[in-house]
């Protein structure tokens, strides 16, 4: 199908349609943790790249948080100059294999693509992924580094924001040490996003690339407990970047929420992704998933949790969301993937209490039906509970995916660091500087839970400011 397209790249009808990316069959993939989307072949990439018309004023670049020079790298793809193309990408984005997979391109670069006005936008993310994967297969070489500046920067948190800041600062010749509290670098990329959406070998390869740039990664180091920010300066660091993310799970505070079988999405995903409990008992950390699973919430984390539960053998996985399908905050692509795999949704409903069996395990969930009222401050219509509409759902596993809040440890242990009432760190918009000299922050710890790419954008901006501050 797609091969036929590749042979007729100039066919006028095809020009408005993007080349589909091959995927694992939904029936097969619902039972394994292998990657769902398989990536473009060279032929497919060339066909897709040919659709880019190289606009003189490209909307895609403006809408990219890291200002990737999209038409320029696509032009190099068209010319089959793949090495140059990936170098062009890496000038702005140190984690292309990750962004190519998990960025919400439809909301960013691809949203403003000229081709999208009449047909489908150019698949920028898929092309980015193609280049990154191709380079990884051939073996990644680190670029020539400038001579050392003699300055030292501590990066707190090895997630998307921290890794991006680390890469940019290392490329500028600064000595960078990344402190990570968990035993593996990657942050949400390793503990949150599942293997079938972002294979962990990809994250590892990107972390290795950052190490090749000269950055040191120190795991098991929870800054705030092991060292405070003040102590990092005493140890000889000249600047600090805080990218500790939003990793605290939220619960609804309804009766029965501490029964067995009820997980926060964070616990569920940490067990499955970081601790690889889908490989239990070869891997030691267990997980228990029953037959009837309810996932509370409608974001990407809810979709990821639901799809993991299905792969762990659940008979039925139901996403329970208090608004309707139109308001689902998850990426459309991920919603479609979940639906294809057989995940069902119960819209306009929310749990009010959980009922356990004699051993303290959840057996039923009482829900209440909702209707949509006038819009709230987020602009979405506010769900309002309908009196007397309570109903019971039999469940033996519940995953609560209603959002995460900022990690509080740094804020609690750093004097003079200004924070908001939501627990996020206050920074100057244009520089990422906090209320303390030499201390910068970015990513979810500043914005609250957001996307991988916006965190990377913030890491990039802070790296630039830190460089200016140091030099």
């Amino acid at each position, binding site marked *: 199908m797609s091969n036929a397209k590749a042979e007729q790249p100039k066919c006028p009808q095809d020009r408005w349609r993007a080349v589909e990316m091959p995927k694992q069959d939904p029936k097969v993939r619902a039972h394994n943790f292998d990657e769902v989307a398989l990536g473009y072949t060279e032929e497919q990439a060339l066909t897709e790249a040919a659709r880019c018309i190289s606009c003189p004023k490209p909307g895609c670049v403006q809408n990219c948080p890291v200002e990737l020079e999209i038409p320029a790298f696509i032009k190099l793809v068209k010319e089959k100059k793949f090495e140059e193309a990936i170098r062009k990408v890496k000038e702005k984005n140190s984690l292309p294999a990750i962004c190519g997979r998990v960025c919400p391109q439809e909301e960013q670069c691809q949203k403003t693509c000229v081709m999208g006005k009449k047909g489908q936008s150019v698949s920028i993310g898929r092309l980015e992924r193609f280049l990154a994967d191709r380079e990884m297969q051939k073996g990644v070489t680190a670029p020539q580094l400038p001579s050392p500046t003699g300055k030292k920067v501590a990066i707190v948190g090895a997630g998307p924001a921290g890794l991006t800041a680390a890469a940019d600062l290392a490329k500028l010749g600064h000595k960078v040490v990344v402190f990570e509290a968990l035993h593996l670098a990657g942050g949400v990329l390793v*503990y949150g996003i599942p293997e079938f959406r972002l294979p962990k070998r990809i994250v590892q390869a990107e972390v290795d690339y950052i190490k090749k740039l000269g950055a040191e990664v120190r795991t098991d180091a929870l800054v705030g407990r092991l060292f405070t920010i003040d102590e990092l300066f005493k140890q000889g660091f000249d600047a600090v970047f805080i990218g500790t993310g939003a990793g605290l799970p939220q619960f609804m505070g309804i009766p029965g929420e*501490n029964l*067995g079988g009820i997980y926060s999405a964070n616990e569920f995903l940490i067990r499955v992704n970081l601790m690889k409990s889908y490989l239990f008992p*070869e891997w030691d950390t267990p997980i228990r998933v029953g037959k009837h699973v309810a996932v509370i919430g409608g974001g990407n984390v809810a979709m990821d949790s639901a799809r993991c539960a299905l792969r762990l053998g659940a008979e039925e996985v139901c996403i329970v969301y208090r608004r309707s399908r139109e308001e689902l905050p998850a990426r459309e692509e991920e919603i479609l993937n979940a639906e294809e795999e057989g995940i069902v949704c119960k819209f306009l409903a929310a749990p009010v209490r959980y009922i356990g069996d004699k051993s303290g395990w959840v057996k039923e969930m009482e829900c209440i039906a909702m209707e949509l009222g006038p819009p709230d401050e987020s602009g979405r219509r506010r769900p309002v509970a309908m009196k007397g509409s309570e109903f019971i759902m039999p469940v033996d596993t519940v995953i609560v995916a209603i959002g995460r809040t900022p*990690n509080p440890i740094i804020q609690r242990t750093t004097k003079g660091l200004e924070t908001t009432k939501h627990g996020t760190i206050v920074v100057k918009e244009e520089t990422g500087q906090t209320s303390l000299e030499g201390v910068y922050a970015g990513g979810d710890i500043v914005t609250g839970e957001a996307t991988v790419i916006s965190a990377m954008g913030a890491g990039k901006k802070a790296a630039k400011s830190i460089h200016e501050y140091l030099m």
Partner: protein
Amino acid sequence: MYKIVRKSEIAPKIKLFEVAAPDIAAKANPGQFVIVKTCENGERVPITLVNADTKKGTITFVFNEVGKTTRQLGLLNEGDSILNVCGPLGNPSEIEKFGTVLCVGGGVMIAPMLFQVSAMRKAGNKVITVIGARIKDLLFFENEMKALSDEFYMATDDGSKGYKGLDFLKEILTKQKVDRVVAMGPVVMLKAVSEMTKPLGIKTIVTLTPIMVDGMGMCGACRVTVAGKTKFGCVDGPEFDGHQVDFEELVQRQRMFLPEERLAALFHERIGGINVVKCES
């Protein structure tokens, strides 16, 4: 990697490790714990600290070989290294001059109680220490505790050494003014002690050991109900007011993965050698 500089078996299947970890040692206080992981595919296990020696740059902890990971840990020897040690985690114990403090340590948690007894003594308290275990062979640190305490008692479930059961505590609590009780041990013991002190109005601090994964506030596996509110054992605790803890829920939550824990132990017994080789490579 964290090198084991001293290993000893202090009771059957109960082992002590002193580990080189200067940064952790510099920050560790009584009541805090570390998360230990022995190999790439291993689980993260929280273990309460027994000592921190800032001069030597070492931390000490004690564990009971009950599950797969602790058995695997027990196979390591002096000179070997532990892959991951993260800490210090959790809040330090509240240590100040309270007056008379009764310290009750049970089972493997006798060990971290030593850290606390020592700190309570240094803070100028009169320290009454009680250590308890199922049977006499499982009692340890007798001499160490005796040396640090103003009064010292032992108890076993079967009466094979010291008092039989914990009922004698009532006498201690009534014959003199006790200003604070701290307890570390199995949930049944924590509950029994808390129930004894509640009618007497003596503030009782218990160390909870719920299941944890990350140990730093991210997963919520360790949630416990205290005074009707959900708290996280790792970041809000691990010490809580014993009169406010929902012990029934804690016991149920600790048992959540019992079948899997048994399976993992069995797996380890049968083909555990594979994992051990992986650790060393």
